[in-house]
């Protein structure tokens, strides 16, 4: 707003004056209202913003659908009020003398051609909103450290191979060694170094999570966009969705891993088989809500190419949902992997993963002395999953244009 030249202020002064005289009370009321609406929006966007459950999404979309037009109008209103306020402050600052105030401003072509411009940038605002959430930022740092560490860990000096069976000097197996300076997390029942196994397992699990998230995003977006944009396909896709959505995804995963030989690829496919359905539903609903809004129509009439409409008008609305679901996919994939391994369909023991570390730790449940073998992997799992969960939610809140005002 500061970019409006002083001539603008001068032009508007009289108007401001009149407005202020007339609409003092109105103005107050408007303020009250918008304040309350803010609260509601905040309530909607509170920490539990995770629209993960299959059904839960419906309510969210309804809220969002209702919320946005209101929001738009509020944006317009508050924008106007800002100008008014600015007018007032210009007056109060008194950087214009009494004499100047009552002179004609004169016609300045440059000023007349100046258009209102806000330096709003979507990603900039998202970043700023995200950085406000201190917990999420801290966890982001943690996650990045862990990610970085899982990749450089094998190259650090003095690391053991995850599958190497360690013997001591006399050639005896180093079985169930408690954590010490050499084996930081101890060794397991056949003498493998748990430290390197945990990091190797984290690598595998994160890899699976990221792959599932990417597959979900790609397939979900493509199907969702087709479903939402192409009106002829709507009926077919909707009926298909109604059937597919009823299939419990856990059972699909169990069945798929039962039939396929357990490997990283087959687990990734098994987990992705059902996840995209929810994603495409979200995308489709969002697109249907936004696609015929007036600003899109206006944009189209002004000759924006489809690509620009998609990237500038639609994508910002979708980013928060997409990112949220992608971020959720990672802890969920790790959870599913633990589950599948637990019921005996997981990766073979030569490929360490968090799932099979926890499962083998579980066998030592009865032996309190060896419990460290269970505790270390569970701590890592908890840190990773909770971080992704919180970061995902925080980012979704930050990426939602409604929270940028």
């Amino acid at each position, binding site marked *: 707003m500061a970019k409006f030249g002083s001539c603008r202020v001068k032009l508007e002064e009289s108007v401001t004056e009149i407005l202020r005289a007339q609409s003092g009370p109105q103005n107050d009321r408007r303020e009250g209202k918008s304040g*309350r609406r803010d*609260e*509601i929006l905040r*309530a*909607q966007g*509170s*920490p*539990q913003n*995770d629209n993960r*459950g*299959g*059904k*839960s999404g*419906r*309510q969210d*979309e309804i809220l969002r659908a209702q919320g946005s037009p209101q929001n738009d109008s509020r944006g317009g209103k508050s924008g106007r009020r800002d100008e008014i306020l600015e007018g007032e402050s210009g007056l109060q600052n008194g950087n214009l003398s009494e004499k100047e105030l009552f002179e004609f401003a004169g016609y300045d072509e440059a000023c007349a051609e100046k258009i209102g411009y806000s330096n709003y940038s979507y990603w900039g605002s998202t970043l700023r909103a995200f950085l406000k959430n201190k917990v999420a930022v801290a966890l982001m740092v943690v996650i990045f450290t862990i990610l970085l560490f899982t990749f450089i860990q094998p190259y650090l000096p003095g690391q053991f191979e995850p599958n190497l069976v360690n013997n001591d000097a006399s050639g005896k197996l180093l079985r169930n060694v408690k954590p010490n300076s050499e084996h930081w997390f101890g060794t397991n029942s056949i003498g493998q170094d748990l430290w390197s196994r945990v990091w190797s397992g984290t690598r595998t699990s994160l890899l699976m999570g990221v792959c599932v998230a990417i597959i979900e995003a790609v397939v979900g977006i493509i199907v969702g966009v087709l479903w939402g944009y192409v009106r002829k396909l*709507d009926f077919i896709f*909707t009926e298909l*969705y*109604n*059937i597919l*959505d*009823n*299939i*419990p995804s*856990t*059972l699909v995963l*169990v*069945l798929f891993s*039962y*039939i396929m030989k357990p490997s990283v690829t087959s687990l990734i496919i098994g987990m992705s088989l059902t996840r995209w359905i929810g994603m495409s*539903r979200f995308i*489709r*609903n969002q697109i249907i809500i936004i696609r015929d809004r007036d600003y899109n129509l206006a944009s189209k009439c002004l000759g924006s190419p489809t690509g620009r409409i998609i990237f500038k008008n639609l994508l910002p609305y979708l980013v928060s949902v997409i990112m949220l679901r992608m971020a959720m996919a990672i*802890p969920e994939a*790790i*959870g599913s992997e*633990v*589950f599948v391994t*637990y*019921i*005996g*369909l997981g990766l073979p023991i030569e490929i360490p993963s968090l799932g099979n570390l*926890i*499962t083998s730790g*579980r066998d030592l*449940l*009865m032996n*309190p002395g060896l*419990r460290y073998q*269970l505790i270390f992997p*569970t701590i890592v*799992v*908890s840190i990773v*999953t*909770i971080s*992704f*969960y*919180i970061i995902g939610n925080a980012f979704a809140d930050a990426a939602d244009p409604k929270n940028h005002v």
Partner: protein
Amino acid sequence: MVKYLLKRFARSILTLVIIISVVFILLRLMPIEGYFQNYEKLTNEQIQAGIHNMGLDKPVLIQLKDFFIQLLHGDLGTSRIYRANVPITEILASKIPISLQLGGIALVISLIIGLPLGSLMARSKGKFWDKFGTAFIVFVQAVPAAVYFLFIQIFGNEWFGFSMLFSKDNYSTWIMPILSMAIGNTAYYAMWIRRYMVDESNKDYVKLAKAKGVSDNKIMMKHVFRNAFVPMIQYLPTSFLNSIVGSIYVESLYSIPGMGGLLVDVVKRQDNTMVQAIVIVFACVGILGLMLGDLLMALIDPRISLNKKGGAR
């Protein structure tokens, strides 16, 4: 309304038929070891004879047709490995009541704990209980269930001396499994009731009630909670599915002779017909749960009109 119910029902049946067909066809791809108890010791002729007896040499589609006809007579086939040549329905009949009891109690408990927790959080928004509850919810939702189930088992055993194994007659052994099964849904209910109550308490009628001088307790219980409870019904289906997954974990963890534990057993022993039967039963339960949730919602909330065309559902 009736039209919607019929449509919804037909859709469920169609889904079920599709699932059963897919499960059946996929399981035909499995190696035939899964149909014989002592495959290694059998001669080639015996195997061929066995395959012929079971009808496995027929084309898949004919097998599928036979299977559907069997199914309509309430016959899920016979177990081959888990308990050789015992009808599966007989095995399941002894397992289902236990799962049902545990699951039912767990669901009730999760409602009893989850709803008050959620309302408490909504009432003390931004204060200690809210933060505490949020931390609990985030933990339960993010961390894989297997992890905290294990810790419940360890600490329940160590601190309170509950047995690690389930026994039907000793009710103190029921506590930990039920607690484990309930915890996921508790967090789920608490999360959503909090959210709906917060939404609801920002509405005008609450302000009016406050202005009239109605006490906070009364507003919360009589107005906010009631209105917030209605949309909760749509989470019933999901909690149904949650409890299926929970039961698979918990039952095998405590050696409970129920459906979930059975699935883990037969998967480990590669009994194809049993896996097929149990997956089908679970799919039925899941689909039934989803359908019930939709129907309940349609019945309870008059604002939802389901006959509108073109909605997501």
